[in-house]
């Protein structure tokens, strides 16, 4: 086998790993869409916000330091302590739960019974708000996030696969971080499935997803469920934020992963958790392989920007509800 073939396999594996990262973001979308019928555009910004808070807590930044400095002419930056990673994660999780509560209280409560498209636009507004708010709170410089997940190429794998391809092949290069992301994603999905299948709250969540009015009539509080769902989505956003933040630094562009997650959703269907995972893998592998085989040699590269959307678009023309979505039944 030629070395090129093995490079192809390496690209394939890395595509799978990238796909897992997309799935992590897409999961948050699916959770909220299932439970409240809201297409939450702010999911990407939630990941950014969670990562910003995490870094902020860890390094002991003073919230709104820039604003305070600009208004009162002071020079404050840090509290001067370093929080252990685990404590910071717990604090961030509290923030996300508080955020879920506030969103429900100030936005969603007032938009009950509005058309889905109005709700979607409200979440775009929410995304803008959060983006500005996060930057005001923690500053907009690029931050380094380190919670102790090993990074860099996995040497063991590289050394043990080098013999495969002959002299000009040095073994598969796979980032440790991606491997950990895959493990976390697997744990997360298992936990979510167990939670929704075997707990009382999980059953209530599924009831709400099935039919709002029927759920209300048997005494399930929609508002409590919404807070819970947004908190879980906040938790998923935190995991995605940690992974993406460790990989590429915490900065504005982190919120753009939401855009990357959209084709994943279209492919997998808006209502299916396994769909989000498999859709992510297909998109990840598809765009990496397309770039490797066709994009870079023939089209001038950077095809990753649009390939996922085109793939999803073509796919939807043949199956409008996505791979695992519920069949769309329209009635007059």
């Amino acid at each position, binding site marked *: 086998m030629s070395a090129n073939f093995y490079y192809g396999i390496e690209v394939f594996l890395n595509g799978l790993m990238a796909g897992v990262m997309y799935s992590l973001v897409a999961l948050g979308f699916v959770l909220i869409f299932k439970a409240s019928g809201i*297409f939450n555009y702010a999911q990407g910004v939630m990941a950014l916000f969670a990562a910003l808070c995490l870094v902020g807590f860890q390094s002991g930044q003073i919230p709104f330091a*820039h*604003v305070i400095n*600009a*208004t009162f002419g002071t020079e404050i930056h840090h509290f001067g302590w370093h929080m252990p990673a685990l404590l910071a994660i717990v604090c961030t999780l509290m923030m996300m739960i508080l955020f879920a509560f506030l969103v429900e209280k*100030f*936005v969603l409560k*007032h*938009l009950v019974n*509005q058309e*889905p*498209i*109005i709700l*979607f*636009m*409200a979440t*775009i*507004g*929410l*995304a*803008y*708000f*959060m*983006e*500005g*708010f996060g*930057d*005001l709170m923690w500053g*907009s410089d690029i931050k380094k996030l380190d919670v102790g997940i090993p990074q860099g190429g996995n040497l063991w794998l590289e050394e043990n696969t080098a013999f495969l391809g002959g002299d000009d092949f040095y073994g598969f290069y796979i980032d440790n971080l991606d491997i950990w992301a895959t493990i976390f994603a697997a744990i997360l999905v298992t936990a979510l499935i167990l939670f929704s299948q075997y707990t009382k709250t999980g059953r209530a969540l599924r009831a709400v997803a099935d039919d709002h009015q029927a759920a209300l009539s048997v005494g399930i509080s929609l508002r409590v469920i919404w807070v819970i769902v947004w908190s879980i989505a906040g938790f998923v956003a935190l995991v995605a934020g940690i992974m993406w933040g460790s990989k590429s630094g915490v900065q504005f562009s982190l919120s753009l992963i939401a*855009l990357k997650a*959209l*084709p994943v*959703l*279209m492919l997998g269907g*808006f209502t299916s958790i396994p769909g989000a995972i498999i859709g992510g893998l297909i998109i990840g592998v598809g765009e990496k392989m397309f770039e490797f085989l066709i994009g870079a040699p023939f*089209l*001038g*590269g*950077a*095809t990753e*920007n*649009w390939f996922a*959307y*085109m793939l*999803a*678009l073509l796919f*939807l*023309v043949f199956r*409008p509800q*996505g791979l695992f979505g519920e069949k*769309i039944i*329209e*009635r*007059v």
Partner: protein
Amino acid sequence: MLYREAGDFKTSYAKDQQTFPILFDRWGYFIMLALAFIVGPMIINDYWLNAVVLPFLIYSIAALGLNILTGYCGQVSLGTGGFMAVGAYASYKLMTSFPDLNIAFVIILSGGVTALVGILFGLPSLRIKGFYLAVATLAAQFFLVWLFNKVPWFYNYSASGQISAPERTIFGYAISGANALPHISYLFCLTFVVILAWGARNLTRGANGRKWMAIRDMDIAAEIIGVNPLKTKLTAFAISSFYIGIAGALLFAVYLGAAEVGEAFGITKSFLVLFMIIIGGLGSIFGSFAGAAFMILMPVLLKNIFVGQMGWPTDLAAHMEFVIVGGLIMVFLILEPHGLAALWRTAKEKLRLWPFPH
């Protein structure tokens, strides 16, 4: 007092259906037009033109276009930036390939090219609906931006990858390029705005507009009563893209002068125009203008307050702007989902009865 219908009798159907049925409104409209065309050019200067007036005029055209598609026909599009890029690059290619062609025709032809591209990307809308379509239009956005970035033919193989508008004149006055005069470019854009707004108003209240609205309200029901969804959706895509293409061409040729596709026509533009029609009011011609004015004026105002008055650094002010824009969108959607246009309608209803409301 002035604003009432008493004594204003309509004797024909045409009169009853006119755009401004109230005499006061009608006169107000003509006086506004006269002021815009006669007094406007006399008092306009470079600062006002570039900071407020030109962006307002150009984005109103884009907002009109998106409102036809999203507000009237109910097809949510996030590809506005990409379609504006098509207009801009079409006008650039036309200007450089046919130097003798009048700039007004160049702009209109660019709109036509964009309409064709719009039809192409509108085709999936027959199968895909709602959110799925919104995401599908993102494909247009990212693909078009990538295309204009990667294929050198579109930017005439220039080293920087930028396009810059050569000088073109109309009736002997420079419209584009370095020597353009403020009042001439103002009048040029204003003419386009007035004609296109007139066209949009009449399209949307005629047979086409009714079909669009039928599709928006419930597409299956519309199909059953004999509205052809293929034709209706594609005309909406075509006309909307025509407007957006003209806006893109004007933005590039008259306002920016030089443009780099990722920066000038990125995804943020798509959202900007979408916000305009949400805040202004979906399915309203007046709303398109109100939304464009709001979204253009507010950043200028905020910048003056935070940077000018309070002495904040510009990056902090920019973040504050995000917070305020996002917050306002949510507030608008909660308090008045139909935007500024609905507020204006309510105000008019009140004014008709004022000062004796009973």
